C-alpha cells in the first residue's frame, strides 16, 4: 500500500481529491476555497500601513493562514515520508525544449540550476524568484483570485468572471512560456 502511495498519483486521483476540498471547506466551516487571499491577510497582519485594502479584521480570516501553513507542512510530510525515489518523468518534448533553452537539472520536481538556494543572489534568482513571484502576487490580487479561487472554486460555482480570469491565466502562461522564457534564457546564458 505504502509503495503505491509513494508513486506519483495519477491525475484523476489528484483531481478528485483537490475537487473535494471545495465541499470540505464549505461544509466544515462555510469557507470558500481560495489560497491567494492568504497573501493579502499576511499584508494586513504585518504591514497594513493604513491602506484601505489591508484595513480589515484579518483575524476573522485566520483560517486561511492555518490552511496555507498546513499546505507547507503537507509538502514537508510528503517529501519526508511519501517521497518517490525515482526521478520525475517529464514529457520527452518538454524535456528536449527545456534542454535546448539551457535547463540542465531534470532530477527533481524543480530544476535546481534555476531554483537552488545558490541562485538567489544571481540574475536567475532576480527573474525566477523575485520578478516571477511579484507577478504571481500582484496578478492574483488584481484578478481577485488564483487557480484555486477562480479556476476551481469560481468555475465550480459557474461564475463567468472566473472563466474570464482562468482564460487570462492560461493566455499569460502561454505567452510567458513561448515568448518570455526564450528571452530570459538568453539573458541568463
Amino acid at each position: 500500500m505504502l509503495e503505491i502511495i509513494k508513486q506519483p498519483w495519477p491525475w484523476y486521483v489528484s483531481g478528485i481529491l483537490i475537487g473535494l476540498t471545495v465541499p470540505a471547506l464549505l461544509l466544515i466551516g462555510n469557507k470558500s476555497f481560495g489560497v491567494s487571499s492568504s497573501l493579502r491577510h499576511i499584508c494586513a497582519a504585518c504591514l497594513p500601513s493604513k491602506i484601505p485594502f489591508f484595513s480589515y479584521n484579518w483575524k476573522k480570516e485566520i483560517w486561511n493562514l492555518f490552511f496555507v501553513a498546513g499546505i507547507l507542512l503537507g509538502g514537508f510530510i510528503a517529501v519526508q515520508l511519501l517521497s518517490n525515489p525515482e526521478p520525475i518523468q517529464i514529457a520527452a518534448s518538454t524535456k528536449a525544449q527545456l534542454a535546448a533553452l539551457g535547463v540542465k537539472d531534470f532530477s527533481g520536481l524543480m530544476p535546481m540550476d534555476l531554483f537552488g538556494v545558490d541562485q538567489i543572489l544571481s540574475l536567475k534568482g532576480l527573474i525566477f524568484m523575485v520578478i516571477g513571484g511579484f507577478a504571481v502576487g500582484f496578478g492574483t490580487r488584481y484578478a481577485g483570485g488564483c487557480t484555486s479561487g477562480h479556476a476551481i472554486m469560481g468555475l465550480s460555482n459557474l461564475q463567468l468572471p472566473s472563466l474570464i480570469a482562468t482564460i487570462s491565466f492560461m493566455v499569460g502562461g502561454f505567452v510567458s512560456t513561448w515568448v518570455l522564457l526564450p528571452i530570459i534564457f538568453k539573458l541568463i546564458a
Partner: protein
Amino acid sequence: MQEIEEFVIEHTTDCEAPNEQIKRESIFSNVKYLILGILFGIIFVKAEIISWFRIQEMFRLSAFHMYGVIGTAITVGAISVFLIKKFNIKTIDGERVIFHPKTFNKGQIFGGLIFGLGWAITGACPGPLFAQIGSGFLAVIITLLSAIAGTWVYGRFRDKLTH
C-alpha cells in the same frame, strides 16, 4: 428545523475566500483547516503539480496531466456545489452554505494575464508556493516574499489601476 437567518458579513473589498461562518471559531478549532491544508499539501506534492516541469508541460501542451487534474477538480467541485445547493446541505454547525457570485471587472483580465506570466516563470500558483517551500525548495521563500510584496503593491496602488 430552525431556519438560520441570512447573515452577510461586510468585507472591505471582496475577498475570494471569505469566512462566512457565523459561529465563532477558537484558535483550536482552526486546527481543522491546518489538517485539511496538510492533506492538500501532500496531494500537491504527490500529484507533482508543484513541479515547475509539470507547469511547463502544461503550457507546452506536451502532457495531459495538469489539464486532467484541474479539469477533474472543477468537475468534482461543480458537482459538490450543485448538490449542496440542490439539497440545501448545511455545514456541520447547521449553517446555510454561502456562495459568492463574482462580478466582472477588467482586473480579472489584466491581473489574470500578469499572474499567468508569473505562473509559467515560477512554476507555481500561490498554493504550490507553500508546498514547494515545505518540500525543501527553500529558495522559494524568496518567491513567496516577493508575491507578498506584489500583493502589497497592488493594495497600495489599487485606486490607480484600471478595473
